[in-house]
């Protein structure tokens, strides 16, 4: 069979797979514990076969690696396992800082990310928003990334869906406000230090700053009780620490993508930020400690199973490496 024929068969198989998923399989799909355990067993058998073939010098190609990681990420969505999860001190510190705020405190939430980073940051933002509304914290939303304020609106909607009573309880302009995006990266934070009004003459809907009850008396960071930054890169937590915290003495915690978290840990250890939620695990821990279980908890199971697959493949890769080294190839 030539390559072109194989590709046609693969394409037809993929299309058939998605059509079966769309129109044949039950919705939603949930595996029973027996099926889940059988799948885990099958994955283990696959790994043993790959290991044996590797020892025989028959290596798997990269596409099999992609497929295994994809399966490991996907199947846990349909499984019913509870992953034991311990809340780390840095996430607990974030929660404690929020808990210490009296009702009516003004919290500045900067949404500095866009949809690609939403799987990690949206769950923590959703949990925070619901927590803030339920505990009568006044949330002032802004974004240094253009799509950030839209992500914030999604969090607000998620909070309303999770707790429908909030839709009646919280009022726009009084309990929360979305000031929108402002171009200028860290210079926006510098400008806010001098005066919020100059950086945000209107909110996201075009309402003048002075007409919004929640913010009309807020001049600068001195009127903010706490700040939470959801960040996926630059501008983000680093800039907020450098300007907002170190120059204007803002009290802040951060939620970061996993790729950014190692760069932010030094700020946590130095006491520049009071808490940190790093990546999916940070989001799941925050969901757990606030009692608002959401997508991060589900995602974490998928991520953990993919990590196991990656660890298995690293071990097999090392077996192949030492086998070749021993063979002098």
């Amino acid at each position, binding site marked *: 069979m030539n390559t072109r024929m194989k590709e046609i068969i693969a394409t037809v198989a993929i299309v058939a797979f998605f059509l079966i998923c769309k129109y044949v399989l039950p919705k939603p799909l949930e595996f029973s514990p027996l099926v889940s355990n059988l799948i885990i067993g099958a994955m283990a058998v696959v790994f043993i076969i790959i290991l044996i073939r590797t020892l025989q010098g028959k290596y798997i190609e990269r596409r099999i690696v992609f497929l295994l990681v*994809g399966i490991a990420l996907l199947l846990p969505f349909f499984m019913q396992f509870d992953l034991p999860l311990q809340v780390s001190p840095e996430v607990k510190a974030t929660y404690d800082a929020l808990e210490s705020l009296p009702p009516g405190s003004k919290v500045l939430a900067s949404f500095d990310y866009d949809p690609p980073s939403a799987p990690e940051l949206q769950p923590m933002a959703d949990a925070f928003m619901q927590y803030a509304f339920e505990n009568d914290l006044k949330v002032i939303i802004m974004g240094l990334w253009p799509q950030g304020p839209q992500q914030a609106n999604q969090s607000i909607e998620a909070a309303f869906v999770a707790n429908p009573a909030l839709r009646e309880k919280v009022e726009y302009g009084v309990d929360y406000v979305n000031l929108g995006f402002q171009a200028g990266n860290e210079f926006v934070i510098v400008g806010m230090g001098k005066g919020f009004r100059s950086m945000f003459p209107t909110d996201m809907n075009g309402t003048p700053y002075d007409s919004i009850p929640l913010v009309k008396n807020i001049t600068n960071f001195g009127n903010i009780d706490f700040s939470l930054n959801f960040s996926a890169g630059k501008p983000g937590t680093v800039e907020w620490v450098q300007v907002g915290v170190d120059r204007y003495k803002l009290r802040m915690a951060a939620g970061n993508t996993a*790729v950014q978290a190692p760069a932010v840990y030094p700020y946590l250890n130095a006491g520049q930020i009071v808490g940190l939620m790093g990546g999916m695990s940070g989001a799941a821990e925050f969901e757990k400690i606030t009692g608002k279980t959401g997508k991060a908890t589900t995602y974490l199971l998928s991520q953990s199973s993919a990590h196991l697959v990656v660890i298995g493949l690293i071990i097999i890769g090392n077996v192949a490496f030492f086998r070749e080294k021993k063979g002098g190839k």
Partner: protein
Amino acid sequence: MDWQIFGVWLAAFMTLGIISFLYKDNVFYKAAEAIFIGISAGYWFIVFFWDSMVGKFYVQAIESPEPEHHVWVGLILGILMLARLSNKVGWIARWPLAFVVGATAGLYMMMFFVSNAMVQVQSTIMPLWETGDGWFTVFNNIVIIIGVTCGLVYFFFSKKHEGAFGVAAKIGIWFLMVTFGASFGYTVMSRMSLMLGRLDFLFGTWLEMIP
């Protein structure tokens, strides 16, 4: 026609097109990539036009009842930047570039010196143990001291890395490797999350299979 359903199907097709690159380069991937790049360029152009040209310049310098005249300086520097397009007057573009580089360097120097140098050094200078510290805290403090010292020794190239100095440098490189490893692990975690987001969309929003 329900445009939301059409949008979901289109997004699903684009996602599958991008993922198909994992098999090999193909026409679906190329189409999805070209559409993504084109839309991104258009999106960012519009964002910067309305937020910078209109929001920062037109509103503040022209529309406002109290115009801020210094904004014109920014516009002039911006126009000078376009001089690069001409071979004859391209050198003029160095002026706004010099302004941007100078201003950014000046601002960043202070920001990084305070937040990333002084505060970090200050937090490293700490007592090895204090009354009430658990053994884990003391162990952590010792690790920080050894890590910082040996890491600095590794980057000291005026003396040959041999003897006790060489051992310290070797320990330093181990600390660096562990740091890079942790950073790489976090990066892998982040990339998995991106894939999870797409799978959640494909099997949740599109196929409606996820509980």
